[in-house]
């Protein structure tokens, strides 16, 4: 099977790597680019653990081939915190005990970051709907929900303060 050269950016860094056309994006990110923060839990698009952001949209990297991401811009969990500072969402996951084993967490953080960027003030029900694309077997979703709700609330306050 022939290999293709793939050039893409992940978290602002350029990667040029070779891959067979059938290689999954999830494997490419983990194995070729060495970014193991993106996890693989089912490889059939249900668990959501492999979620990354491709050109501004959350996608399941196990349902995409690496060649399809040629030339694209990708964000993974490694790119969330800057200079060792957790993002408010990450910080709230910590404070609200939104993770236990942490295996589902990167995918949930990526989906949520993307979602909140587009829907800054979701209701609890909407957050639950968004989370329905992710499986977590540790937390019962309670801590996750609280962490996201708190992030939404904190954002509202910041907007208020900035606006006043």
């Amino acid at each position, binding site marked *: 099977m022939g290999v293709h050269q793939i050039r893409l950016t992940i978290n602002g860094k350029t990667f040029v790597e070779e891959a*067979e056309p*059938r*290689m999954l994006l999830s494997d490419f990110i*983990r194995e070729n680019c060495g*970014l*193991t*923060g*993106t*996890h*693989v*839990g*089912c*490889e*059939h698009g*249900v*668990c959501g*653990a492999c979620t990354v952001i491709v050109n501004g949209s959350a996608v399941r990297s196990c349902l995409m081939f690496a060649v399809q991401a040629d030339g694209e811009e990708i964000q*993974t*969990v*490694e790119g*969330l*915190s800057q200079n060792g500072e*957790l993002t408010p969402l*990450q910080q709230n*996951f*910590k*404070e609200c*005990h939104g*993770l*236990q*084993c*942490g*295996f*589902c*967490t*990167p995918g949930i*953080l990526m989906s949520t970051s993307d979602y909140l960027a587009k829907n800054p003030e979701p209701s609890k*029900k909407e*957050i*639950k*709907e968004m*989370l*329905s*694309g*992710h*499986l*977590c*077997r*540790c*937390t*019962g*979703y*309670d*801590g*996750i*929900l609280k962490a996201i709700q708190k992030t939404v609330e904190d954002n509202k306050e910041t907007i208020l303060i900035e606006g006043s």
Partner: protein
Amino acid sequence: MNTVIGNPLPRVEDARLLTGQGKYIDDLGTPGNTAQAAIVRSSYPHAYIQSIDITEALSVPGVKGVITGKDVQTYLNPFSVGVSTPVKYYPIAIDKVRYVGEPVAVVIAKNRYIAEDAAELVKVKYETLEPIVDIEKSIEEDAPILHENVGSNIANHRNFHYGNVDQAFNDADRIIKHKFNFPKYTATPIETYGIIAQYESSSDQYTIQANFHGPFIIQSVMAGALKIPSNRLRIIVPKDIGGSYGIKAGTFPYMVLCAVASRIIGCPVKWIEDRQEHLSASSSGTDRVTYIEAAVKEDGKVLGLKMKMIDNVGAYIRAPEPACLYRTHANSTGAYDIPNLMIDGYVVMTNKLPTGLIRGYGGQELYFPLERIMQMIAFDLGLDPAEVIQKNLIKAEQFPYHTASGGIYDSGDYEKAFHLALDTGKYQEFRQKQEEARRKGKIFGVGLACIVEPSGSNMGYITIALTPEERAASLPKSGASEAATISMDPMGSVNVRISTTPSGQGHETVAAQIVSDVLQIPTEQINVVAELDTSTSAWSIASGSYSSRFASLGSSAVYYAAHKVREKILKIAAHHLQVAEDDLTIENASIYSKADPSKKYSVKRAAGSAHWNPMSLPEGMEPGIYETYFYTAKKAEAPDENDLINSSVTYGFVADLVTVEIDPETGEVNILDYITIHDAGKLLNPLIVDGQIFGGLVHGLGGALYEELAYDEKGQFLTGSFMDYLVPTAPEIPNITIKHIESPSPVTPLGAKGLGEGNTMSAPVAIANAVSDALKPYQITIDSLPLSPNKIWNLLSEQKVTNS
């Protein structure tokens, strides 16, 4: 410094897990010559293997070799197991397959893509046999036999009599009995199994990295299977495991399979399981049929119980099975004062995936019939279920309570917790609401469950599978031990090494909290190492994480190891300050005299003296600071000749109240409120505690409503993906209220008990009770799970038909 035990401290693990820096098995580096494995699996539930043709697979570029059952036999013994039945279990089928998904060949190739391609080219010819999947049919005369050399499908059978059961049944006003089926379900950690195995011929040593987490008695079992001295099997467990809930504990056949593959092929072998393999061929909970009979008085008092339990361990019995049947042996009568008990326990084998540990292990199977029968007693006698529970609950003044089967319940106030559940759930008010709803044609119900949550398993309990005579002939097993090592380096920094192989329970955080309290050092300055390496860590057969043993045992080992360090640095300071040791105390990293606080010595300096200046140490003291403590709970004796066994070290209590509404059109069960009251003794970190409870409860909810590893009657496996095996997602989670009372355990130094499994045990039956309560006007009784809309709808429509 204030104490930090008992504080809801955020976890030290989180920073790495939130930034993608966790180190799970699939993230670890491998030697350059590592190859990847793909496993060819049986598509038949029961068949002889006639031939395996590997030629085509071998010709695929990049394939390094293909191995089959015949190849591994030279290097392996069957896995040993704690029953006398001679079942031969290898990690790969030798001449016969006994469940769909059983390995028949392993392809080793340069990468996983190539290995999987080649696996499809392996041609296996089978001669199919009649399969057996039904528990009760498996013990009928003409049932197909899985293991010819065993002669029947029964792997274990024991009968137990405690108290005077005949008398109790004679004295009873009524005998209430029913049969219940508990399904086969699993836990589906989001991370599947993963292994990197390497054989080194020069030392004849296997090194296996795996997300396996104990009990480490399995290390001996695996070494035996690999035919090597146990110190030639080095197991390394990564610090991060992506969830398990028991599924990654117990006999982990793929570790041995990859180890042998590495030996035969001659390079390190890595294998990451896929989801379908996980669902069909990793491990699962045990399905059980229970016939329960209760001898009761008219006032609802239960005098005695008879239970015939038949556990289905699947195609092979493997350690720690038949533990599902025995883990709860001491608490077989649950939260009730019932002195007369008969148990007739069978373990059978059928053509399904072999079973093993799972969150709640044995508890959900036990409490489903027990708590269902309590409700049926109430209905039969025309009493309120709450009244029947109340009448039978063990009273506060009865602690420590000795159960019929040998359990010693350490502490509790069951009535208080139960009343708190009734009050919080507004039980009486709901009953009125229910009446009104019924008048409007709505179906409301309320379910109760009171369960005892055992934690910290006594390693002796599994030998109850043997008769007293068989036990007498072998080495007795007892205890519930765990080890921890704490060291101070030359600069006074603290390292803590634990052997409890966490998979998300925050052991690093809680260990840091405990050490922080004992040594008066801020938690941020403590480094906890959770990797376990059987060649270098302090561990024992009981080590690992299962049976909620960290809070009761792991934490105790850490606590006492920290005290050993504390004593040593106090001795050093006392020597240098020339004061009595008991006059010294530690605060804010400083050791000082209570009588004269101006006499001070820093902790850092005490540690420094032990390393840089050992000549200055008191006479006879060893240099360095490196202390290991092996802890065992005292109340964990081997079973006696009367089969009395205290199978766990601590016993918590859970009282649940759940309200449901059932949609008559669709049969869907909608949970209105879930109230759960816990008594787990002293809580070490309430934030982690509630997280564990939520997780356990939602797993129980899945078991009640959605989850089942389904097979058709021909043994074909039906639930091989997350589209077929349904697990709860966020929108399905109801309102959950958790409350605590704390009855400290007198058995553990910190007063803590294990927790996190309780609701996995209680939720299936609490919800089943609520549904039965709701459907009482239709004369529908729930005796199997899961309660899918389909099942409820069918029950309702059958009922309508018989009524019309």
